[in-house]
Each structure stands twice: as structure tokens, then as C-alpha cells.
């Protein structure tokens, strides 16, 4: 991660992901305020729709990259003790990667028909 997601690259990554995420967040907000899935079948049908599935699947790595750069910046700025900072960064990487896999599994399973 060090070379790919630090300095100017991290700065750029944070802004490009932000643009996609702002549109995705806007769509999700409107969807859940005006037309939230009322039961399991509706939720599955929504997630399994190719455009929605695509938008969500693309959103997962982007939101996680955005979250990682953000939390990394916060930890670098406020946690002065090196071992604590590295420990927290490792913990967040685990949580973020595990969450991403869980999201993708849920989306793919819905597409298959579960």
C-alpha cells in the first residue's frame, strides 16, 4: 500500500473515489427515502438488477479505498506512538478487507438467486 496509496496518489485517489461515491450515495439516499425495498424478495430483486449490482460492486472497492486513505490520514495525524498507530492501521485493514469480501459475497449471492 505504501507506494500506491501515499502522498499525491493518495490525495488523487481520495478525490476520484469521492466523485463516484457522491453519485452512488445520492442514488442510495434517494432509493431508500423514496422507494426502500419492503421485503426480502424486493431487496434481492433490486440488488440482482445488473445495473445496481454493477454500481454496488464497483462501489465496494472504491468506498473501502476511500475509507482506508481517510482513516490512515487520521491515524497518522493523531496517533503519535508508532506501535499503536501501526497496530490500529493493521486492524483497520483487516476490518476493511473483511467487510469488502462480505459485501461482495452478499451481492454475488443475491445475483445467483439466494
Amino acid at each position, binding site marked *: 500500500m505504501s507506494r500506491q496509496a501515499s502522498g499525491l496518489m493518495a490525495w488523487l485517489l481520495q*478525490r476520484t473515489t*469521492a*466523485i463516484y461515491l*457522491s453519485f452512488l*450515495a*445520492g442514488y442510495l*439516499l434517494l432509493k431508500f*427515502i*423514496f422507494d*426502500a425495498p419492503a*421485503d*426480502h*424478495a424486493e*431487496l*434481492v430483486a433490486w*440488488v440482482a438488477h445488473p445495473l445496481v449490482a454493477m454500481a454496488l460492486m464497483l462501489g465496494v472497492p472504491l*468506498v*473501502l479505498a476511500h*475509507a482506508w486513505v*481517510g*482513516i490512515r490520514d*487520521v491515524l497518522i495525524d493523531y496517533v503519535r506512538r508508532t506501535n499503536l498507530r501501526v497496530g490500529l492501521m493493521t486492524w*483497520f485493514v483487516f*476490518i*476493511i478487507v*473483511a*467487510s*469488502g469480501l*462480505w*459485501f461482495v*459475497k*452478499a*451481492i454475488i*449471492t*443475491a445475483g445467483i438467486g*439466494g
Partner: protein
Amino acid sequence: MTTPRPVFLDLLRIKLPLSGIVSILHRVSGVLMVLTIPIVAILFHQALSSPEGFAATAAVLDTWLIKLVLLGLLWALFHHLVAGIRHLFLDYGVGLDRAMARETARLTLYAAPVLLVLSIILSFLLGD
């Protein structure tokens, strides 16, 4: 590095300018949302897994305490979104002069609660 300049970092007595308040709240809201990522992943996966799972997720989201947390998170999302868009404009040099920056900072601070109230009203009007 030693300079004769005085250092004043009493956090309780430093007065943040409006832009500074927007900025620190951007960070706070971001951290809040990062902390909920695993919980959202678990609830989303559970809701998709089966009708029982959907009911279980709905039951969790329907409790009073969680609804309050959700309102807090919705504020966080709105603030993060609006402040983020403001920061993007600042990156491109738009709205950098002090009066303008202060005005957009004030607007950002108001925008998130306004959007929050608006979405609460809409969700009350549109369903149960």
C-alpha cells in the same frame, strides 16, 4: 527545530474558524462512517440471505436506539458529502478568498441538519 515563536496549543481555548469546524467535522463524520462499515456489511449480508434474515435486520434497525444512531450517521453522511464537495471546489481554487470560504463553511454547517430534517419529513410522509 527551535524558534523563538510562542506555541499555543490549548485545544480548549483555541478558537477554530468556521472552515476549521467544517474540516474537523468532515474528519469526525468520516471516522464515524468507517466504524460502521463492518456492521453495515453484516446487516446487509443478513438482509439478503433469507426472508428471516431480512426480518432480523429490519428488527435491528427498528429499535429506538439504533434509529437515533442512524440519524447520527445520516447527519455524518450529509456533512461529509457537502463538506467534501466544498473541499473539491477549494482544491480547484474556487471559493478560496476568506469571505467566500467563510460563507460556504457556514452554508455547509447548516446544510447537513437541513438535509437531515428534510429526509426525516420525507420518510414520514412517504411511508411507515
